[in-house]
């Protein structure tokens, strides 16, 4: 099997005595659509934060496209092809929808050395690469001057960015909101704008943190279709955290269930739904006892 785009092996994170996450394993391959569920406080968002570099794992390794990313900063991990959305929407509120997306398009505006060349330099030397750092620094320096002097190349790039951002807004059905401030968008559209923004960074893996939270049934149905479409269109690996069982069960091929930081079940939706441990975590053992261990049809 090919190298996974995103791989977590035995990842643990402890805050003092609290084991927020332990022994967490995950593989995301191209075009995978996986789910991460669990009761409140189970460590789902913590897992996202570890994967994206917000927290440094206490143990275990995270790899993006085969490269160990423990200790890299979030923006570096993002550059390797991992993008996310946030549970509590974190848009750039006073920026327009277009600018929200254009901020994330930044990765394409390299002036001197191409992204590929810098990556190559980084890969050649095992740890910190002076050459790569120098190239990035020079890129940035030249880039600032291009912006200040308004060179034709810079203007071309800005236009290209705008075109790209427009296209993404179109994909997410937000083109009519292009010039509106993000904070003025309705809730569901804000969620979609976050996805558009994440896609603009050119990810290979997309992590969605409760994308359907606060949406009504119809918006949720639309979102399910959209997520599936994104996967095929951009051949993304997608990992979804979701509370809405119907949504997760409906679209994910594999589901991981967390409870108190431990992985208590993993498998296809049917298996997870039938797992007594999962039912216990969600509904409590008294429920199981009352049902005489009968496995109910739904676990939500």
């Amino acid at each position, binding site marked *: 099997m090919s190298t996974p785009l995103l791989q977590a092996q035995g990842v643990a994170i402890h805050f003092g005595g609290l084991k927020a996450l332990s022994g967490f394993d995950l593989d995301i391959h191209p075009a995978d659509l996986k789910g991460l569920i669990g009761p409140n406080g189970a460590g789902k968002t913590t897992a996202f934060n570890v994967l994206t570099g917000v927290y440094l794992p206490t143990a275990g390794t995270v790899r993006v496209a085969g490269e160990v990313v423990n200790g890299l*900063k979030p923006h570096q991990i993002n550059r390797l092809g991992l993008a996310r959305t946030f549970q509590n929407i974190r848009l750039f509120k006073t920026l327009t929808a277009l600018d929200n997306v254009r901020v994330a398009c930044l990765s394409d505006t390299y002036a001197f050395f191409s992204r590929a060349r810098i990556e190559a330099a980084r890969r050649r030397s095992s740890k910190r690469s002076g050459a790569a750092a120098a190239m990035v620094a020079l890129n940035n320096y030249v880039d600032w001057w291009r912006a200040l002097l308004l060179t034709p190349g810079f203007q071309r790039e800005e236009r290209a960015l705008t075109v790209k951002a427009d296209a993404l807004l179109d994909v997410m059905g937000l083109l009519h909101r292009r010039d509106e401030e993000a904070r003025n968008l309705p809730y569901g559209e804000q969620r979609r704008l976050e996805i558009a923004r994440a896609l603009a960074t050119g990810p290979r893996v997309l992590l969605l943190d409760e994308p359907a939270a606060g949406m009504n049934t119809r918006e949720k149905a639309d979102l399910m279709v959209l997520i599936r479409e994104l996967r095929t269109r951009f051949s993304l690996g997608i990992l979804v955290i979701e509370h809405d069982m119907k949504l997760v069960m409906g679209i994910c091929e594999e589901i991981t269930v967390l409870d108190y930081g431990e992985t208590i079940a993993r498998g296809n939706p049917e298996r997870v739904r039938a797992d007594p441990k999962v039912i216990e975590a969600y509904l409590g053992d008294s429920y199981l006892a009352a049902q005489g261990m009968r496995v109910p049809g739904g676990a939500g």
Partner: protein
Amino acid sequence: MASLPAPVRGVFPVLLAVGVLGGLQVVVGQLPFFVYLSSLVGVNVILAVSLNIVNGMTGQFSIGHAGFMAVGAYVGGKLALEMKDLAIAGIPHGVSDQLQLLASLALGGVAAGVAGFLVGLPSLRLRGDYLAIVTLGFGEMIRVIVSNLEVFGRALGLSGIPQTSSFMMIWLCVFVVVLVARRIQDSAHGRSLLAIREDEVAAEAMGVDTTAYKVRAFVISSFFAGVAGALFAHFVPIINPGSFTFVKSIEVVTMVVAGGLGSISGSIVAAVVLTLLPEVLRSLFLQVGGLEGGAALAQKVDQIRMPVYGILLVILMLSRPQGVFGNRELWDAFPRWWGRGWRAEE
């Protein structure tokens, strides 16, 4: 503008400004009081617009701008003193003076930029109030260091710096800093800065190297503060540590906040108004109160300025917390003429 060759188009506004300001220089050169006032205004506009890049666009609260101004003033002033007896041969005296001034502005700016880098690199990892305290500490540190260094004349400061600053040079610097701020605002870099202001965590997650961007904004901002300081050194008879106290920093912060955090035109307007207000009051009192009573009143203007600023700021924060302009720009009201720069050419 579309007919201009591409490499010139970017610097064309500056060339145009040189021409226009050169012409104005001839007209106003004979009005010393006007030149002096406009110099004060110009320096404060540069300070406010440059601080706005950090406080307004990037959302990092720095209150040590006077420190960077001091670095620029002293380094630029020292260079000017060293070059005092030199003149570039073969060109008119005035032009040679202006070129020397330009050199000392450049050196002052670079020195302040380096200082900004050294201060920014460790401290911009901090947030909010912590950063404010560090920058405040830095400003005071510079002042204390300068007042203990023999080369910078200790508490007496530097005097005898050639008074070569001109209306043209000051407003050219103003023009450049405004142009730079606008072009940053309109570029991918500016959007990254705004993103950091709006949500640092999200910006980082979207691939923006937040620390690096903050440091860059800080360096650009302190560079221009240094230029302002060097200009200042060339039109006041003496610079001493007393000119660059915490009060000066707060004055600039007041301008930025009053004008509207993130609004370039807001900073400009606030800097102009808040600089002219005490000056106008002072000359008004002198006119009205006769020589003796007037002078006493005029002196009071300086003393009551800070309390008045404080009250103004309180009123403003209560009634319009986003500042007079919010994050809007004056030129947004005239999109036809001012346009959004090159975007109008699309």
